[in-house]
């Protein structure tokens, strides 16, 4: 049997005159309750998993979310993309704490229980690695949307606003930056502007209702809504206030954006407005002409999505898609558009707009503007070519 959400699979043949079968599962009782005290997907969905392009090197690498198989805006915890620099630590929460120090009035240490006693907030927002679609910067390289755009997920995060924690420690007047540091083997560290820290940053202990998943930073993660993925420090152990940025490796050697003149843009934090059609998308096959749903995701680190336009002719004409369900700040937004495929060649594209007035440009235009070497922060328009046979491939336009 084929996975329900894995592909636009071949329709099963039906002989319309024959009587319906009564399948075995209707004629006998199913599995007992509590067979799984913590449940799992159907075995028929076994192909809906994270995948990787990382050449083997232990804990250093990334895995990709199977976007084509997902619906709505929530990414299930088990399918959230991974990016680790020294693997996934197995942290005992009773042995873990968060230290806040530097330019504060009183350095403090918070156990998990302490954080649970503080006022909490929940919000849904996306996390996108700023290397997402980096491989597609100058040409179409990968076949499917998991491989091109899979460093992208979205969860409901719960925790304590960093401003409340800094309300308890107090701050010195000259504080401008916060160093956030993980307890993993990479002691992953980034400098967060204090302006952002006091705006909407959360010290999160829960994701989609439950404790953070180990791959997402159990037991504590910094959530910096709209900022590049790497800044959402996992396995968070330390926050240090300072007057200057800390110039860590991940904001000098990495996650800086190389321009044609050899200079690199530094402290490029916010993920640009972006969208992608996930169904139909690369690697799928349309099996018959007729009514389809074009379905995709749009997001922006600058705020809410305001509009998404879809083209089926490679950008010649555009139609406004319907924004489905919740339209939230710095959050995945689902768009849909009914489409009648006439069996001819088509090029599917989407173009998103955000409330800050940004919109998505073609890869070609961006590439002309920023040169060959940018890699990070590619928010260009993705194009999928539907052939006359219904086969769908990734094309660079």
């Amino acid at each position, binding site marked *: 049997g084929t996975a329900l959400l894995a592909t636009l699979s071949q329709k099963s043949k039906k002989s319309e005159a024959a009587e319906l079968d009564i399948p075995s599962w209707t004629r006998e009782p199913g599995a007992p309750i509590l067979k799984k005290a913590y449940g799992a997907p159907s075995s028929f969905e076994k192909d809906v998993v994270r995948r990787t392009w990382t*050449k*083997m*090197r*232990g804990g*250093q690498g990334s895995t990709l979310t199977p976007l084509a198989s997902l619906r709505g805006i929530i990414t299930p915890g088990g399918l959230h993309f991974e990016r680790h620099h*020294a693997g996934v630590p197995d942290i005992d929460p009773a042995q873990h704490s968060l*230290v806040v*120090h530097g330019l504060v*009035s*009183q*350095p*403090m*240490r*918070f156990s998990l229980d*302490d*954080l649970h006693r503080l*006022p909490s907030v929940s919000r849904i927002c996306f996390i996108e690695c700023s290397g997402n679609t980096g491989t597609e910067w100058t040409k179409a390289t990968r076949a499917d949307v998991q491989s091109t755009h899979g460093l992208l997920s979205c969860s409901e995060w719960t925790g304590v606003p960093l*401003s*409340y924690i*800094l*309300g*308890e420690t*107090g*701050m010195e*007047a000259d504080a*401008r*930056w916060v*160093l956030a540091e993980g307890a993993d*083997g*990479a*002691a992953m*560290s980034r400098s967060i*502007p*204090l*302006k*952002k820290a*006091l*705006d909407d940053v959360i010290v999160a202990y829960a994701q989609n209702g439950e404790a953070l998943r180990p791959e997402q930073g159990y037991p504590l993660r910094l959530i910096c809504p709209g900022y590049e993925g790497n800044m959402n420090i996992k396995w968070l*152990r*330390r926050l*240090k206030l300072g007057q*200057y*940025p800390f*110039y*860590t*490796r991940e904001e*000098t*050697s990495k996650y*800086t954006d*190389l321009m*044609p*003149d*050899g*200079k*690199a*843009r*530094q*402290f490029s*934090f916010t993920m640009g407005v972006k969208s992608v059609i996930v169904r139909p998308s690369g690697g799928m096959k349309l099996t018959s002409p007729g009514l389809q749903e074009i379905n995709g995701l749009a997001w922006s680190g600058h705020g809410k999505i305001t509009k998404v336009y879809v083209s089926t002719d490679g950008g010649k004409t555009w139609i406004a898609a319907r924004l489905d369900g919740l339209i939230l700040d710095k959050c995945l937004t689902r768009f849909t558009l009914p489409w009648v495929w006439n069996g001819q060649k088509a090029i599917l594209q989407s173009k998103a707009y955000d409330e800050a007035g940004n919109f998505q440009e073609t890869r070609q235009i961006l590439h002309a503007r920023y040169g060959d*070497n940018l890699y990070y922060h590619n928010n260009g328009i993705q194009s999928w070519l539907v052939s006359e046979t219904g086969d769908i491939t990734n094309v660079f336009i």
Partner: protein
Amino acid sequence: SPCPGEPISEDSISPWNIDISRNGPLPQGNGTPLIGKNIYLEKCAACHGASGDGFMDIYPALRGGIGSLATKTPLRTVGSFWPSPESVLDYVRRAMPLNAPQSLNADDLYSVVSYLLYINNIIPQDFPLNEKTISSVKMPNRNGFIDTGEENGKITFPYKEVQDRLGNCFRKK
């Protein structure tokens, strides 16, 4: 305790207080490329290669690439790309060697980083790298970064909200 969290002294924090940056205090220690070479060969070369040229796409090169940044094949290394030696000290101290992070003492750290600078022709092989001399190290790409300015702007503390929710646990600035 009535307020969540415990006061802690900066002294107690020191084992975690490992960041090194151009604006902060430096660890006390000293090393030269000559000493660093041995540490490199023992603890780093297995992954990054005997000459520091890395291994395929798997282990990054730690030397070379100077002058390549504006070409079609930029090579970003400690030599060609990193803007300051403090960042190298910081990263190696926290994350390297990959299999035993935070295992280098301060002298070994200065030594092995001085060796990386040496193989990039940034300092001579007998250069004593320490908290005093580091300011004289001139990284080739030290002026290679353009600040986007995203971090600028007014810093606003949500005073009323925090006061409302922390009550007596709110420490006025």
